């Protein structure tokens, strides 16, 4: 029987017998999609709005009604003075404050500039900005309606958000989440599985055998490639069924690119484990070296364009950055390999370099 087959079978036993880890590997992707899908939302919904209206009249009431009607805002308080605002913001009861100046309606009717103060809780800057954007949109809409009524000429821009018309944050993060999950499974698990052999002493028995480094590495990589592939399917399935994330392009291409990305992550994991000797160190190295960059520098949560230049440069060597771009392209824009070949090539080159590096740095002797 061939040595490689023996290695694969042994690895399969390890994975299948460690039920707890296996369950984590299978359920973690699903749980993560659910968590991200339901909790981490950057789209604006159910915003707690407090209105300060010293002189209520027909004009301010109409504006208030427009805020109440949209579904984005929920009016949690109306006051005549500004005093209640501060405590409401501090206790997180209010997220946006809308302060009409005294005599707002009168000024407007007289053709004078009417002042309106918009206060947002900017603890989270991105969501704060989105809320401001929504508030302005409501006011602008009112303004342009007013202009139409008075017969004045107005330019009314029609805004369309391509590829994600309803601005669902789920659509944006699912590709990034795939990268995260695959990094954890591929990089972390292989790094742990190889260093475990070093810790328990079984590496000594493997090394003294005629097994070549590439055989040991392939034996470790192949089973996790399979698990990673299943995890990709699970993430896509949940994203599709629960969050209705679109799949504009080819599913086959996406799975192919996913497999390529798993290979990159696996070779990273092997490289980490070739250079560490304990599971604890391997875990830290895998976290710092792969998961953190995947989370921070892939454009998954934080847009790359708004990062300082040096970080943008660093992101070039983060595999997840390229995969997230590819996955978003395929899922949301429906583009194919004709457009994505450059990014695909980058991933392929990374795999090659990392695999060669890990075979080379694999020590055929003990320390």
């Amino acid at each position, binding site marked *: 029987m061939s040595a490689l087959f023996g*290695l694969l079978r042994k690895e399969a036993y390890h994975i299948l017998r*460690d039920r707890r880890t296996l369950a984590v590997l299978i359920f973690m992707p699903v749980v993560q999609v659910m968590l991200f899908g339901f909790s981490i939302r950057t789209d604006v919904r159910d915003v707690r709005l407090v209105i300060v209206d010293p002189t209520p009249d027909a004009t301010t009431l109409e504006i208030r009604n427009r805020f109440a009607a949209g579904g984005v805002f929920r009016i949690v308080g109306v006051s005549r003075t500004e005093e209640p605002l501060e405590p409401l913001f501090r206790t997180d009861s209010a997220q946006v404050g809308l302060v009409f100046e005294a005599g707002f309606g009168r000024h407007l009717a007289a053709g004078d500039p009417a002042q309106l103060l918009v206060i947002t809780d900017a603890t989270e800057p991105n969501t704060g900005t989105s809320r401001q954007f929504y508030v302005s949109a409501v006011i602008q809409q009112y303004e342009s309606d007013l202009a139409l009524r008075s017969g004045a000429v107005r330019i009314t821009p029609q805004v369309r958000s391509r590829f994600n018309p309803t601005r669902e944050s789920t659509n944006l993060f699912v590709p990034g989440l795939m990268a995260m999950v695959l990094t954890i499974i591929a990089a972390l698990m292989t790094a742990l599985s190889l260093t475990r052999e070093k810790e328990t002493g079984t590496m000594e028995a493997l090394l003294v055998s005629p097994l070549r480094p590439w055989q040991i590495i392939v034996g470790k990589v192949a089973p996790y490639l399979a698990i990673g592939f299943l995890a990709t399917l699970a993430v896509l399935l949940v994203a599709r069924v629960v969050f209705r994330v679109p799949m504009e392009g080819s599913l086959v291409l996406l799975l192919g690119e996913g497999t390529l990305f798993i290979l990159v992550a696996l070779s990273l994991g092997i490289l980490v484990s070739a250079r560490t000797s304990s599971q604890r160190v391997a875990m830290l190295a895998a976290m710092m070296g792969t998961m953190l960059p995947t989370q921070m520098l892939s454009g998954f949560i934080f847009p790359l364009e708004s990062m300082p230049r040096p970080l943008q440069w660093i992101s070039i060597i983060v595999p997840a950055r390229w995969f997230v771009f590819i996955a978003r392209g395929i899922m949301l824009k429906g583009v194919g390999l004709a457009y994505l070949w450059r990014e695909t090539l980058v991933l392929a080159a990374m795999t090659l370099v990392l695999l060669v590096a890990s075979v080379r740095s694999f020590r055929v002797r003990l320390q």
Partner: protein
Amino acid sequence: MSEAPVVVDDVVKRYGEVAAVDHVTAEVRHGELFGFIGPDGAGKTTLFRILTTLLLPDSGSARVLGRDVVTDLWALRREIGYMPGRFSLYPDLSVRENLDFFASVFGTTVAREYEHIAPIYSQLEEFNDRRAAALSGGMKQKLALCCALVHRPNILFLDEPTTGVDAVSRREFWELLARMRTSGLTIVVSTPYMDEANRCDRVALMQNGRILATDAPAAVAASFERTLLAVRSPDRYRVLLALRDYPHTQRVYPFGESLHLADDRAGIDAARASSEATAFLHDKGFTDARVEPTPPTIEDVFISRMSAVNAPVAAA
């Protein structure tokens, strides 16, 4: 037959300041059961790892089966069987799965090698489906031995195979080795247990990375150059203290149930030495102490050759 299966020439391996193996030169002959005997930290494991291609020596050279352990590692790894000192099988795999795996690594199967490993494997077969983690210490060692033998190696290295194993299993294990030796297989074994030295054809005594003596066990024991007396007394500790003041004491130390006293006068008659020691103890008030000549063992040789600093007098 050509070159000896193991030729070690002036090998040194350092870990920082400490020389784990310090200018070791040794030779193991064909078909021999050869033992490296020494306490923990003597450098046995490091030497074994160098011989099994797992470590590079800092200087010196070693040849196993006529192949250099540094340059010819891939050919050597096919031919040697090695059982590491630390249990190195997969605890989550069953007995049979472990064996199947190590057979597959060498491109063979358990079925094909069955007859070869049957003498040992037959004792394990009833536990085929048991996970290696759930085996007793003795069973684990037998399984490890099976795994090291499954590819029909031309030489076998066993690093402390009986450490942490109960007395009965230890004896069984040595009987297995003796049986395997009759097939002509060269076996190199290490052990910290002096009493196991007699099971070997030849032994090398190791201490602090150096070899103190190499010979047949009986010859090593016979090399003890002093007259050795065994002293028995119910009050062993106070007798030990008293004997330190005996003018002819070269060294006195606890040995099993008794005390061993090496007389510092070269070539003195054993009967005279024991009667003088008896008289000395009587004067000190130990009237029930019994002194008689005793043949030196390898352990006595070992203790006598260790540096004075390490003399285990304080161990009482």
